[in-house]
């Protein structure tokens, strides 16, 4: 070790010092040429855009009024290198002529909530979160109400826009 340090101390003078700096700089650039693309490669998920999709959920008039109804849909999504059809669901609440579409994802830890018509509440199986039919938290650990997805009724049909849920 001492030998290496002695040799390096020779390089701390004059022209040798310049050579040492040039050599270290070149090594640094070479390392950066590999490390920067490597880092960007690892961080790829941060830069991926989520596809926004507009999905039809069916006939608005067929939805019972005043009680959240589970509606299944399938959507074609690209997951990495694979394009696949995913089955999913949302809860739809019809109040008169207005429509609210809730994401079933619990805002606590991301599990799916279920509508319990007996107790008139959404219940999460993971940590016992509970929401009322408007999606507001009534008990348990969820920090926020259920996410309401952008939706509209167009010519009697319900449409929802799917994207990434806010964290």
């Amino acid at each position, binding site marked *: 070790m001492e030998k290496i340090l002695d040799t390096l101390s020779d390089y701390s003078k004059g022209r040798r010092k310049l050579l040492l700096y040039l050599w270290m700089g070149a090594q640094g650039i070479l390392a950066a040429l590999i490390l920067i693309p490597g880092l960007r490669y690892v961080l790829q998920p941060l830069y991926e855009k989520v596809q926004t999709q507009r999905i039809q959920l069916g006939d608005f008039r067929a939805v019972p009024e005043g009680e959240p109804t589970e509606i299944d849909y399938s959507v074609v999504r690209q997951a990495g290198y694979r394009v696949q059809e995913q089955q999913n669901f949302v809860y739809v609440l019809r109040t008169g002529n207005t429509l609210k579409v809730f994401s079933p994802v619990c805002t606590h830890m991301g599990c799916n909530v279920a509508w319990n018509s007996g107790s008139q509440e959404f219940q999460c199986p993971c940590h016992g979160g509970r929401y009322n039919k408007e999606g507001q938290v009534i008990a348990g650990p969820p920090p926020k109400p259920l996410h309401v997805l952008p939706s509209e009724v167009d010519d009697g049909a319900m449409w929802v826009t799917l994207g990434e849920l806010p*964290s």
Partner: protein
Amino acid sequence: MSEQPRSPALNAITDFLFERQPKKVGWTHIFGASLLMLFVIQVATGGLLALYYSPSSENALASVRYIEQQVAFGSFLRGVHHWAASLFVIFLGLHLLRTFFWGAYKKPRQWTWVAGVLLLILVLGMAFTGYLLPWDMKGYFATKVGIEVGALAPVLGGGIKRILQGGAEMGIKTLNRFYIWHILWIPAGIAALIGTHLYFIRTRGITPPGKRVDEPGEPEKPFFPSQAWKDFGGMAAVSLVLVLLAVFVGAPVGQPADPNTTSFVPRPDWYFFSLYQLLRIFPGELEVIGGVVLPGILILGMLLLPWLDRNPERKISRRPLARAFGAVIPLAVVALTIWGWRSGHSLEQQYAEQNAAPAWYTPEKPPDNDLADSGLYDLYLPLRCGNCHDVDPKGINAPPSLYGAGDRYQRAWVVKYVQAPSRRRYEDKDVRPTIRMPDYQLTPAAAEKLGAFLSGETGEDSLLHPAVDWTVRDTAMIAQGRELYQKYECNSCHQIQGEGGEIGPALDGVGSRLKPDWMYTFVGDARRLIPDTPMKDFDLWESEREALTYYLLSLREPAQ
């Protein structure tokens, strides 16, 4: 006689065996050797499991089942791999506790301690990334919760979540990256840290027990033979426990991951129970305290401990502050682990903990006749439901008879089921027909009609009607029924929460599916209702039938 020069390898072995160490070193110092052995076992068994494992969401569980059921000693090796992870955490905890109480983290061994704490973090990371690999229900949802905990981190949370998932949502990319973290990057980190840890031990030596930092060491003895035999003894005991656990307990394999399920209650392995319980303790906006702040403070405190504790004493009796922390923190972790282990087993328990019972059984109103008629003429007959659902009650190898469906099924469940039918029994090509109920894409209104018609189909003359008010939730009877369920080993044929046999249908949510009188009749005299059923005849007392029915009624689906 001229002395032959020795080879470098022989020199290294001799140096290692005759390394000098303090005389008081003994049984409390055997954990390190056992940890090294467990790491080698993990790498070896992991490498063997990887020969057959397929890291894709379609094939992962099938490949794990193949390893468990068809590859020679696959189940044993997987059991060893599974339990070695638990033993690793236990021994690492003991090793760190021993180091703490002996004051062995103090100067000049600060970095030996830091390497040990970093090892603990990586070992927990190994366990976490290993969860997801079978791509079963527990793995999927435990990972989802774990990733959401990462997302709680201030500012960086969203990015951490995306990087862990490999994108905006969990899927094939999550499995791929967890797999590579599990088999390459984290083990490489552990190996590097073990090497660093051993290097520090070799260069800084072992702490002389009880000596102040500034006191000279005490008389020494060689590692071999005394301490070497103790280490081997510890390793042999650990190996024996590992083999027994692998053979007699094994590693669980769950049901396929269903990202859309609304009823699965995920629970982590025991070493994450303390974190799991912290998440349950802090509700709402405070979740960040349980998920990030408290564990973060603990880890940071452990890492900085050698610099925070400047007391030169090593004897625990002369370190009052360390004694207090050394008692309170491990006890708190153990208490949270036990609390987490005892709570949150089921939805029912979760709501009981919130002092609010879930919706209990309520008898349904008689169906509207017009609605029932339209169910028959608009749906049941045109869809030819009777072609499969014979009117003669049969055993398990045929679609269920709908004769007396109104006595058997709760209408709300029928309405939900016909909109999204799923296989009620486990697939078995040799025993059960591969046909399954088609999905007719019924609208909610059509499902209501069909439900009304079927709920009007009563007529099971054999049905018993005990004088029990099922609408009253009797917790004592539920508890008694749970004990009877275990006593009569119902789980040898039925599953609850993925545990049990595959002969009969799973009983998750049965309380929302079947009517109580029907269950009461069936559990005591199954052939009275289904003549060909393979269900055993249990000679039950009336009170036992009642208790079992109460218990089954308590297994409710969250959504009805």
